[in-house]
């Protein structure tokens, strides 16, 4: 089988040119990768390929001789997946080496058809397996990206904002599942401690549906906040949600609920002994003085 290694290493330049030509007719992604970079990647892969065939043979892909090629392919596929190549594109990158290699093999071995067939068969198997490696690597990279984005989405969608001294608001956007409840609960409780807040307003305007499970999660959060000494008010209950809650028989009687965030805020201000007043200046200049005067 060292014939194959020789064929590859002796005709590296020609192989590369042919390879790039085939590749560009199959998948042209000049927008995603530069010519020079492609050249360099092809070069290093061909070198690793010749190396692998020489030391471990084309069958034994898990052998030590192939570790260089495997790592190289994985890293190239990962970087391509990050740039937006589809797994198919990435697999095509390796598979398009088949034709140039077959042409070469036919030229070199035309005198011995049996050996030619053997070689072509092993080349096919080898390249197929290498293509699978690239597909695996690019899918793994994508999954990693999706996981990270999910994590970011989760953190983004649970902000805790301070409305006033001792009053927090927690606008929840999206469906409240168990994992998110955990995040919501933790961030709320930590904010309660950090800001020494006695009132927390949980705004569910952005929660599309409230079923028994979501309600249970909400109640858990409220109970935990109560245990720490903070009172929770639920706001942003839409008419549909109010109907659903009653139809499902969810007991929210121990919880204060309000239709609007402003109502909940007004209640929290009132409970903490504060009131928002309209000053004369504000009445004369409606844009200038709202909230400008703190009443304490």
């Amino acid at each position, binding site marked *: 089988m060292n014939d194959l290694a020789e064929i590859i290493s002796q005709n590296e330049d020609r192989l590369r040119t042919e390879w790039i030509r085939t590749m560009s007719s199959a998948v042209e992604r000049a927008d995603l990768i530069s010519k020079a970079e492609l050249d360099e990647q092809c070069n290093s892969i061909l070198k690793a390929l010749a190396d692998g065939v020489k030391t471990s043979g084309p069958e034994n892909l898990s052998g030590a001789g192939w570790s260089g090629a495997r790592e190289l392919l994985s890293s190239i596929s990962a970087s391509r997946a990050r740039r937006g190549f589809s797994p198919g594109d990435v697999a095509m990158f390796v598979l398009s080496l088949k034709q140039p290699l077959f042409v070469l093999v036919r030229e070199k071995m035309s005198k011995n058809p049996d050996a030619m067939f053997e070689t072509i068969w092993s080349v096919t198997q080898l390249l197929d397996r290498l293509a699978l490696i690239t597909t695996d690597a690019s899918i793994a990279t994508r999954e990693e990206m999706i996981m990270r984005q999910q994590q970011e989405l989760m953190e983004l969608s649970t902000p805790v904002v301070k409305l006033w001294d001792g009053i927090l608001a927690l606008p929840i956007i999206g469906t409240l599942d168990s994992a998110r409840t955990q995040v919501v609960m933790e961030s709320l*409780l930590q904010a309660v*401690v950090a800001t020494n807040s*006695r009132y927390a307003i949980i705004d569910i305007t952005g929660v599309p549906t409230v079923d028994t499970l979501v309600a249970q999660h909400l109640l*858990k959060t409220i*109970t*935990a906040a*109560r*245990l*720490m*000494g903070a009172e929770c008010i639920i706001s942003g209950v839409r008419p549909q949600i109010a109907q659903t809650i009653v139809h499902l028989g969810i007991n929210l009687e121990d919880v204060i609920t309000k239709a609007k965030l402003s109502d909940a805020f007004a209640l929290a201000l009132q409970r903490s002994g504060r009131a928002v007043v309209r000053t004369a200046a504000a009445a004369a200049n409606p844009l200038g003085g709202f909230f400008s005067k703190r009443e304490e």
Partner: protein
Amino acid sequence: MERIPVLRMGSLLLITIQVDMHDKLALQLQDDVTERISDWGSTGVLIDISSLEIVDSFIGRMLANIAGMSRVLGAETVVVGMQPAVAITLVELGMSLAGVRTALSVEAGMELLYGNAITGSENERTEA
């Protein structure tokens, strides 16, 4: 013998739990609290658990018990300074400490109890 101190602050009792609770200690504490309430005529009990990092259902039950006993003796219990992790654990254990009042800090707890004492005496006065 190891014992959790019960401090007197005017008409209130202050209990700061800083060690791991076990059966004997909890029973001793229940004894002490009930004794002190009846001796000193306290109207409120503050239990500070801000230094508790870990709770189990035993501690949750103990808190509920002390609150219940105090209520029978005419004193209101406020649990103060619960850590977020502790609150989450208690909720996951299904213990919402329904009969127990809570506050963020000892100060807030005192405000709560004194506020109650004041309105309570006012009520008595109007009733009288």
